[in-house]
């Protein structure tokens, strides 16, 4: 089942190139009449890129069979890609795919960069990442409570690794730790692989990174709790923090599609409707499932509401974390 789905997705993605060539002779007068581009701020192969390729493969059937091409524009923590979309014509043919929580954090952390809520127009949300607390497989804790008791009674700060200061996993993890005033010290690494490796090597006692990075390492590490409002569909046996009676000020980060801010609302509505249908296709669901990425559709209005709420609620938390580190 999964395999056939992957084939379909892969075939669809490869077919996009052919459709692109055919698109030049298109004559349809309504939107879209040519290929669309999704600009991704990450290199090919990561989670965000996989979301982009999955949606690009499933969108054409709902957009006059126009191809959707993924363009990777890495650099500057995703800011370069966002700036490129902001500078593109506001005709709906250039979309940005962003991890919104990361963008909100970066804006506060760096003190510059685009403001998702103001500088762009939301189309839809298509997925999300959640962070989780990870310990070694043989660690003697059954749940978060046991683990927290052990950390609290530690005589010296407990070391933990994350994916880099100012990343979503650092902020989400640190916000939880600060909330319960746990004696910890963070060690920043560059990305989840290095953070995970430091945990496996025993250099740190626990680690915080994305749920999808547990795949392939089930025999070495395990998660004690997911920092989200719902269980991760691919980690259904790991409870959330709320289920374990813990309050976490900061949850997951949504994966959002945006267009330049002056784009015509009618065009935004058309893309939104197409994305809504595409998120429901087997092609999209199975392509994201293979990489352990959850599907989560949100309308344009809900997407905007999330960003505004996150900006308001997260800013003081991020500023406090930044001041303390």
């Amino acid at each position, binding site marked *: 089942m*999964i*395999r056939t789905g*992957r*084939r379909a*997705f*892969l*075939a669809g*993605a*490869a077919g*996009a190139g052919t459709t692109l060539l055919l698109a030049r002779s298109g004559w349809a007068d309504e939107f879209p009449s040519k290929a669309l581009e999704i600009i991704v701020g990450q*290199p*090919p*192969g*990561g989670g965000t*890129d*996989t979301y982009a*390729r999955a949606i690009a493969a499933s969108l054409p059937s709902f957009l006059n069979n126009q191809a959707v091409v993924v*363009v*990777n*524009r*890495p*650099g*500057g*923590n995703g*800011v*370069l890609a966002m*700036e490129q979309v902001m500078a593109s014509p506001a005709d709906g043919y250039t979309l940005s795919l962003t991890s919104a929580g990361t963008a909100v954090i970066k804006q506060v*952390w*760096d003190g*510059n960069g685009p403001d998702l809520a103001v500088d762009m127009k939301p189309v839809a949300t298509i997925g999300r990442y959640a962070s989780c607390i990870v310990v070694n497989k043989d660690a003697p804790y059954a749940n978060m409570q046991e683990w927290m008791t052990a950390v609290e009674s530690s005589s*010296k700060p407990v*070391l933990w690794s994350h994916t*880099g*200061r*100012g*990343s979503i996993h650092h902020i989400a993890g640190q916000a939880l730790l600060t909330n319960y005033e746990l004696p910890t*010290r*963070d*060690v*920043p*690494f*560059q990305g989840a*692989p*290095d953070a*995970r*490796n*430091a945990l*496996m*090597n025993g*250099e*740190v006692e626990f680690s915080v990174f994305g749920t999808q990075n547990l*795949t*392939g*390492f*089930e*025999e*070495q590490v395990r998660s004690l709790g997911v920092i989200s409002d719902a269980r991760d569909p691919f980690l259904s046996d790991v409870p959330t923090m709320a289920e374990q009676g813990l309050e976490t000020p900061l949850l997951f980060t949504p994966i959002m599609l945006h267009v330049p801010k002056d784009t015509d609302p009618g065009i935004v509505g058309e893309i939104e409707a197409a994305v809504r249908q595409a998120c429901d296709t087997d092609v999209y669901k199975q392509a994201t499932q*293979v*990489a352990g990425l959850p599907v989560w559709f949100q309308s344009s209005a809900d997407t905007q509401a999330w960003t505004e709420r996150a900006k308001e609620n997260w800013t003081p938390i991020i500023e406090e974390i930044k001041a303390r*580190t």
Partner: protein
Amino acid sequence: MFENLILGLDVATMPVNLGMALIGAAIGTAIGVLPGLGPVATISILMPVTFQLAPASAIIMLCGIYLGAMYGGSITSILVNVPGESASVVTCLDGHQMAKNGRAGAALGIAAFGSFIGGILATIGLLLLAPAIPQLTRGFGPPEYAMLVLAGLLLVTQVGTSGTIRSLIMAFAGLMLATVGTDPISGEQRFTFGFTFLYDGIGIVPLAIGLFGVAELLSLALGRNETQKLQYEKLKVRELLPSRAEWRRSAPAIGRGSVIGFLLGLLPGAGMSLVSFVAYTIEKALSRRPAEFGRGAIEGVAGPETANNAGSQAAFAPMLTLGLPSSPTMGVIMGALMIHGVAVGPQLITRNPDVFWGVIASMLISNLILIVLNVPLISIFVRLLKVPSSLLVPLIMLFVVVGAYTIDNQIEDVWMTLLFGVVGFLLRRCGFDPAPMVLAYVLGGIFERSLRQSLILGDGVGIFLERPVSAVLMLVCVAMVLVVLVRTVLRFRSGAALVQEADQT
């Protein structure tokens, strides 16, 4: 081991996979030869094409591209002093000098044969050791990387021909350049002056291609060859392959390069430039003719090129078994695996044995294909040097500019490449060899990050002595400093130090 090899060969010799290895190797060689156009950009572009293939076939093709680019990367370094990526900076040093001495064919030949031997030995090493590698590299964390790279930094003045003091100046300039960009620990912006394109630091490709390649092209175009007179007419095209004497000098270098490359390649945090550079300095230290290094010593090509290739194949082990990519290219290949639904990690060997052993066995085949592909091409590449420089220079310049742009599709990289080209040209006119700068730049970034991580982990410097591997490496560093100090003091007493400095410049 044998059942693994047989399983791997079963996968690797399937007609479709043989075809993929051939296509990958051909594309890889082509992009390796075009200066600037790197494997990351190519694999990114070609990744969607692999979506229709089975995971093993897809990864075999991408792996062919990667290895082909490693083979091809030495070609432009040797012929026109344009390094394809940071790992081939070291090849420029003696490889291009050999070309100037009329031994371009020998340099290309030894690079190809060295790469082949190193590649085959590394693959055999992987077949024997791969499942044990997660345990073998367990002792390697930030403190060990910090000390390993520190040892590298202490050797950085060994490369280049401009004397110790000028090399030191260049090395410190490189260390300073490495501080530009996002702070590896605090995540804040340093020396970016608000430019978004500097957030990720100065790119290694603009720096290396600018300082070596563009600078070389400028001196060719301006008709001022600072280091040596280049006489294309006198190139002996017929003497394409290494002579018997050259083979004799290279054989031990190839042997040592294979071992060094394989071992350092297993450590994903060290990076390929450390591999080739350590191999170079070891050859120089062991050579009976150290003065020839930097002036066209064939060991200076054979050692690093072998190590570079052995290392890049060994690097597949930590990527596949620990999910740790050692280079951006490896990162993209790992991402491709993820899209194909293959989760890298300790369970990969048992869950997808066809992918794991298939990829390793396919490297044997890719190496065979590459040597068959590359050796006949040497005569063509050498003839390239006969093209008048009025044609050659603008053509290469075009490729350099296109290559610099395609790294991240940003025009700023082109300006940086050209800027570093002018800087490199001026440096050379003032008698500075930019090689220590590039190496210190690459190592400086790794050193800063792992040193600061270690200090947080250990809450002080004690951690370096507590851990056995880092303690040993630290002793090596101390010994290296002491040896140089004692030697300098002795030489100073005999009144020779200042004279030697002056001689070299």
